[in-house]
Structures are given as structure tokens and as C-alpha cells.
């Protein structure tokens, strides 16, 4: 889906507002009054947010990371070419990640553009990459990761299809 730069600014502001409505604590610099849609030296625009889910006080942190890279493919027409959305649950010690990056490599080797990471024990990979259902946008990713967190259970990685 293509978006103008103005659309992306609104998208980022809406995203931050949604995260905060769901009691996510944004970490600096995204907690400031003015937030940047960051332009990298290659011209791409990057959304890079990090937050903490509202874990009970006695719990360890639950980190949420939302990253997107948008490239201009036509005059003020931007396309999301990469995403990395992650949940790192330090209390239950698991990691879930929804990724699309290095698309040509993944299509060539696995026949898919998107993949997931699922670590029942954070840092221990039973499978390097799982088939990943494409994520529509950061709101969709947030719903999926927030839903996983709300269940308060470790993920069942065995239901996913391992790519290798």
C-alpha cells in the first residue's frame, strides 16, 4: 500500500496515540512531545518505536518494538519495504517477532517474503525462521503481539511451520 509523507506522519501520530491508549509506556525519544519520522541517509523514512507493556509491578519488563522502513517509489508515494515487530517478554522469557526484510533472499530461499521468530525460551531457537502471515501494518502487528501478551502464556511455536 502506498502512502504520502503526510499520510505517514498521521499514521505515526495515530500509532503512538493507540499505544498509549492501551497503556504502553513509550521509551525515549518517542515519549517526547515532538516525535520524528526519521529519514536515513538513503532517503528512506523509518518508524522506530520502543515501548513497555503494562506488566504488573513485580514483573520483569515486556518490551514492544515496532520498526518500519518506507521507500519513495514515486513522487511522494512511499511503500513499506521492511518491517520488524517484536515482543520480548522478560518475565515469561519468550520472544515473538513478525518480520519482513531482505525480501529477495527470503523469496529465493523459502518462497515467502515474510517470516516469524518464535522462541519459547528467549535466545533459544528451535527453528531459525517460521512461515509468517503478512502483517498489514503496525496496528495489526500491535494487535497480534498485544494479544499474545494478554494471554499471559508462552507461545506454542509448534503450531508454526518451520522454514529452516
Amino acid at each position, binding site marked *: 500500500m502506498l502512502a504520502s509523507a503526510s499520510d505517514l506522519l498521521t499514521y505515526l501520530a495515530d500509532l503512538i496515540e493507540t499505544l*498509549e491508549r492501551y497503556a504502553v509506556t513509550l521509551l525515549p525519544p518517542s515519549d517526547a512531545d515532538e516525535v520524528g519520522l526519521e529519514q536515513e541517509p538513503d532517503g528512506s523514512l523509518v518508524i522506530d518505536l520502543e515501548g513497555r507493556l503494562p506488566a504488573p509491578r513485580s514483573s520483569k519488563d515486556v518490551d514492544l518494538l515496532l520498526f518500519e522502513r518506507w521507500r519513495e517509489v514515486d513522487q511522494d508515494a512511499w511503500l513499506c519495504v521492511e518491517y520488524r515487530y517484536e515482543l520480548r517478554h522478560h518475565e515469561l522469557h519468550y520472544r515473538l517477532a513478525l518480520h519482513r526484510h531482505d525480501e529477495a533472499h527470503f523469496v529465493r530461499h523459502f518462497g515467502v517474503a515474510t517470516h516469524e521468530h518464535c522462541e519459547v525460551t528467549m535466545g533459544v531457537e528451535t527453528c531459525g525462521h517460521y512461515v509468517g502471515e503478512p502483517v498489514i501494518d503496525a496496528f495489526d502487528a500491535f494487535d497480534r503481539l498485544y494479544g499474545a501478551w494478554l494471554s499471559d502464556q508462552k507461545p506454542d511455536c509448534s503450531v508454526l511451520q518451520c522454514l529452516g
Partner: protein
Amino acid sequence: MAKLYYTPKEVAEILDISDDAVLDLVNRRTLPALRVSPRITRISIAAFDLWREGYTPRRRRVSIRPAPRKVVGGEHETLPAPRRMVRA
């Protein structure tokens, strides 16, 4: 396990309104909730508490700006500690 969410029925009891009224708040996106499936809705307790307090996130000003330069270190590599300036 910690309880992290309410069902619409539990929220209805807390607010003393009907289940349908809760779902209406969810459908109108007034009450932050998560649709797990067409039949299952979960309401984060933390988000519900904020909503009940009347919390409204402040709208951020968003602008395009150059990405900050990131210093990337190799594995097992650490940056030198910043030097302390000592006034004579």
C-alpha cells in the same frame, strides 16, 4: 498467572451496564479492547483503568527529521568510557 484482561461481561458488571453496551463501546472504539476472534473480546485491565480515569493521550507533533547517527560496535566491543572533564 496474573490476570491481565477483563471479559466484556466483567466490564459490564464493573460499570453496571449491559454486555451489549460494553460491546457498543468497543465497536465505537471508545473503550480500548482487543478482538481475539469475532466472538471473543478482551479488555486489557491496564488500558481499562486508564480509560476509566479519563486518560486521553496527548497528540504528538510528528515531523520528518534526519535519523540520528548510530554508533555500531562489533561483538564483544565496547565504547570507551567518556572522559571526565576536570576543572583545574
